[in-house]
């Protein structure tokens, strides 16, 4: 072995020092990264994956420190480098791509200055050379009009453009190692897909080694060669993509896959299997295996002893797991066939939306705008929405940012009023009634579960009274004791202990808060509940449990559920019918099966293809979209999707709004392309039965 690995970490341990004392963030982390290789580190929030990235950069901040082990760059111990050597290594040998592009760019320097300083500092390039290099890299990351981007300040670029600039910055130095910390988390899926492809292409071209950090198993599967799964500061399993995704052996890894909905799953036939409990806080880790308290295979006396060694699995090269019972656990046998749940029969139509329209006026007070008579313009947040929802049905609204799904929810809830069309909730027109003007029974019939768990509860009040308030308003319970009993019942339903009544929201974890949010929404026995991305901010293992809970309560109460999401896998898994939105328009709607199989609206097709899939048995057809989402302020004149559509058929797409065509009763596609032609598309997903063993 002549060539040492590009980067090697040996038994790396990292701690943070806080008021509470030393908190180990990463324990015993070892990795080797060779030239051209892509290593994935995957884990839920707080598992220590970003800390590893910062340790590789030798930048631990004021309260963090490497307390054990070494990081070797091309065989040299980075801890022994002088400040000057370290500075020369950073940025030129090891480059990093960050997860929040806007915060990572200096707001008062032009992109030109921020890019050019890299070759200027590290290679002693001349001004004009540096400029050429910067321009070239902007072209390489496919930014339109690189000359303009060079002269722009960060705030003048869209989120996708900023992310491309940050990537360009990381690639500019032709580093040997690229550390990517959730580089696409802030982006919409269709934009994300393009950027992932771009990073892959460029690093392949230069043979750059990569360390790719993400919480998204699908993304890791599609980009990496080897994977490290981290849990609570430790690597619990590592292996090649194939080993880990086809044969996950650690109970945690295996459990994670059970929490992810895949496009081949169905909520009734194969419900998600959440991992119980939650991540231990760093200073409250159990003795022995950190996953012990949540593990189904936990054996007292063995799993809670000493430290658990990281051992090879089945004599397989490169496959390790940190579990003492690895040989004994047979996942496929232990697996009781998941209990099947009966599908609900759908009832009468509860919500009837007919050509609902919501325009926001936007005032522009600049002189030229006033002279041209364009002082007031309209943002067309919702354009002619039409669909129905029936009792006990789950209707999903999917779309990327700016598609108008949140505006629609606001109008429905009465926080805004519509500017056209009609919304009938159980035959009462509510489109033009703000919530305060609605009769009390209309208000209680329609409740909402909110997106952000950290925002959904009022931090100043205890949990119980917040649920109690809803009961007091919407039911005939009046006495304090009666209300408290009802709150206790609700806490039972959402599987929280009754003493949570007296807790403050800040004492609850994200998942627990979301449960309280669900209890609050169902407290008044609503006919319909709007859930706006209820689990998107939660970790996968917790999200699965909350999703299942929502489903169970719905099943019991026959509630109509309007599920707003950008995550197509979840949508496919839990909804009965789907509405696909883009820039305020409904592009396609129908039952879930209809929307997820041909004929597709071209946008639906691209959206499906962009979803990273963690299931190795699914083959995906790749469709890459060019460019970014257009701004809601300046949408295309004809079809909203015309600027990015791979199937664009000509002028008509740019200039005329597309017609809504019915494929079959209830399934409509809004597109200029004739249905017959769309029917010729092949399915985006193809499911292949695994050759030998069956893996969840």
């Amino acid at each position, binding site marked *: 072995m002549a060539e040492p690995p590009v980067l090697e970490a040996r038994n790396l341990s990292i701690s943070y020092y806080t008021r509470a004392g030393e908190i180990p963030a990463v324990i015993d982390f070892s990795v080797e990264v060779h030239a051209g290789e892509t290593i994935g580190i995957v884990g839920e929030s707080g598992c220590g994956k970003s800390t590893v990235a910062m340790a590789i950069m030798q930048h631990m901040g004021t309260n963090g420190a490497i307390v054990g082990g070494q990081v070797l760059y091309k065989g040299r111990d980075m801890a022994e480098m002088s400040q000057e050597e370290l500075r020369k290594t950073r940025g030129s040998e090891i480059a990093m791509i960050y997860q929040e592009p806007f915060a990572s760019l200096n707001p008062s320097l032009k992109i030109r200055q921020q890019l050019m300083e890299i070759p200027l500092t590290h290679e002693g390039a001349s001004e004009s050379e540096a400029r050429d290099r910067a321009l070239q890299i902007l072209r390489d990351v496919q930014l339109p009009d690189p000359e303009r981007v060079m002269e722009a300040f960060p705030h003048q670029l869209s989120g996708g453009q900023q992310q491309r600039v940050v990537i360009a910055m990381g690639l500019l130095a032709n580093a040997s190692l690229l550390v990517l910390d959730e580089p696409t988390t802030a982006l919409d899926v269709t934009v994300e897909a393009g950027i992932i492809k771009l990073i892959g292409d460029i690093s392949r071209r230069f043979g750059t080694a990569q360390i790719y950090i993400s919480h998204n198993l699908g993304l890791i599967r599609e980009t990496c060669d080897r994977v490290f799964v981290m849990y609570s500061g430790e690597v619990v399993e590592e292996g090649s993509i194939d080993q880990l995704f086809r044969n996950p052996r650690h109970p945690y890894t295996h459990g994670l896959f059970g929490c992810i909905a895949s496009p081949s799953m169905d909520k009734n036939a194969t419900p998600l299997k959440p991992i*119980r*409990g939650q991540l231990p806080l760093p200073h409250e880790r159990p003795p022995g295996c950190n996953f012990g308290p949540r593990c189904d295979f936990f054996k007292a006396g063995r799993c809670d002893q000493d430290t658990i060694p990281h051992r090879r699995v089945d004599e397989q090269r490169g496959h390790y797991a940190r579990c003492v019972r690895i040989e004994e656990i047979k996942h496929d046998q232990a697996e009781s066939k998941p209990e099947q749940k009966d599908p609900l029969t759908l009832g009468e139509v509860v919500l009837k939306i007919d050509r609902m329209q919501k325009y926001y006026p936007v005032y522009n007070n600049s002189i030229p705008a006033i002279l041209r008579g364009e002082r007031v313009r309209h943002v067309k947040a919702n354009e002619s929405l039409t669909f129905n929802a029936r009792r006990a049905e789950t209707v999903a609204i999917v779309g990327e940012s700016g598609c108008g799904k949140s505006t629609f929810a606001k109008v429905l809830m009465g926080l805004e009023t519509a500017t056209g069309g009609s919304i009938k909730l159980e035959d009462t027109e509510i489109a033009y009634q703000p919530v305060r003007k609605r009769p009390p029974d209309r208000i209680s019939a329609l409740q909402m579960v909110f997106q952000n768990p950290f925002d959904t509860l009022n931090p100043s009040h205890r949990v119980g009274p917040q649920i109690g308030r809803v009961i007091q308003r919407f039911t005939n319970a009046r006495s304090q004791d009666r209300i408290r009993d009802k709150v206790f019942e609700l806490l039972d339903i959402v599987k929280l202990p009754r003493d949570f009544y007296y807790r403050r929201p800040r004492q609850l*974890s994200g998942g627990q808060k979301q449960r309280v949010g669900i209890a609050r929404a169902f407290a008044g026995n609503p006919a319909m509940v709007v859930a706006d991305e209820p689990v998107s901010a939660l970790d996968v293992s917790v999200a699965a449990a909350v999703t299942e809970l929502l489903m169970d309560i719905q099943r019991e109460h026959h509630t109509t559920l309007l599920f707003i999401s950008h995550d197509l896998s979840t949508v496919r898994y839990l909804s009965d019918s789907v509405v696909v939105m883009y820039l305020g328009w409904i592009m396609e709607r129908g039952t879930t099966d209809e929307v997820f199989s041909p004929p597709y609206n071209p946008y639906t097709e691209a959206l499906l293809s962009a979803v990273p899939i963690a299931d190795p048995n699914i083959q995906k057809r790749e469709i890459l979209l060019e460019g970014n989402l257009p701004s809601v302020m300046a949408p295309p004149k004809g079809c909203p999707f015309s600027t990015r559509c791979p199937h664009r058929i000509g002028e008509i797409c740019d200039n005329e709004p597309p017609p809504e065509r019915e494929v079959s009763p209830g399934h409509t596609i809004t597109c200029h392309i004739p249905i017959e032609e769309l029917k010729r598309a092949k399915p985006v997903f193809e499911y292949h039965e695994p050759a030998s063993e069956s893996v969840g």
Partner: protein
Amino acid sequence: MSDNPTATASARPSRIMGFLRSIALLRESWFGMIGAAIVLFWVLMAILAPLLPLYDPLDASVRLVPPGGEAFDGGTHWLGTDNRGRDVLSRVIWGSQRVMVWAMLAILCAYAVGITMGVLAGYLGGLVDDVVSFFANILLSFPVLVLYVLIIAFLGASGVNIVIAVTFTTAPIVMRIVRGLIMDLRTRDYVAAAQTRGESSLYIMFVELLPNARGPLIVDVCLRFGYTVVAIATLSFLGLGLPPPEPDWGMMINEAVELGAHAGHVMLAPAAALSSLILGFNMMADGLREISLRD
């Protein structure tokens, strides 16, 4: 999803306990601790003034006795006497009571007005906000002391008028702070949740929103209390404050300045007292802010 082991089930603690606990958090900042100790010292002095073995602050004795000098009855004037023969130590301690009582009243008044206006402007927005903000801007465009002088010059110097003047100068600032906080808070989901169950604006403003603004407001009260003490003392110093002869820090300095070098001790004692009290408030505010930023 299981129980969170850190948070143990607790019986309902009262609101007062909650407040005390947030003050008790100060122990995590030694800086804030010192500040709180200084403030506490002066609060105790103010409360205990009638019980302490002091000379009557109004009774005249020998004039301009130097610190530590002997009193007519054989006792000691620890900080000397002023030009009318009144005991300086006694006047400084009684002065703390006077300045703090009026500062407290003034702050209560200013906060009541400022918070109400700020919550209304911040939550309702639109015309209410425009009108309230306009009047606040007018008041804020006066340099603070000019406004004080103007108000006192026309209303006359009295305790009540000082409360009015402090309200006029401080309420707009409080209003702006509260307005900003409320505008930020009103976009939270729990407010949307309250709206979607049809709560009234009043309920949302004062039950859902205001309690969440208290953190920054507690810090601000500390600072603002200090400023108000300074303002009251400054007005006395300028001859526009609380009427004599009751002891008053600003007035003591004013009287002593005219006497020059003979009265150095008369001047330094109230100046040191005032500075230490303000230092206490500032350190306490800094400590509280530091703690609130931490979690």
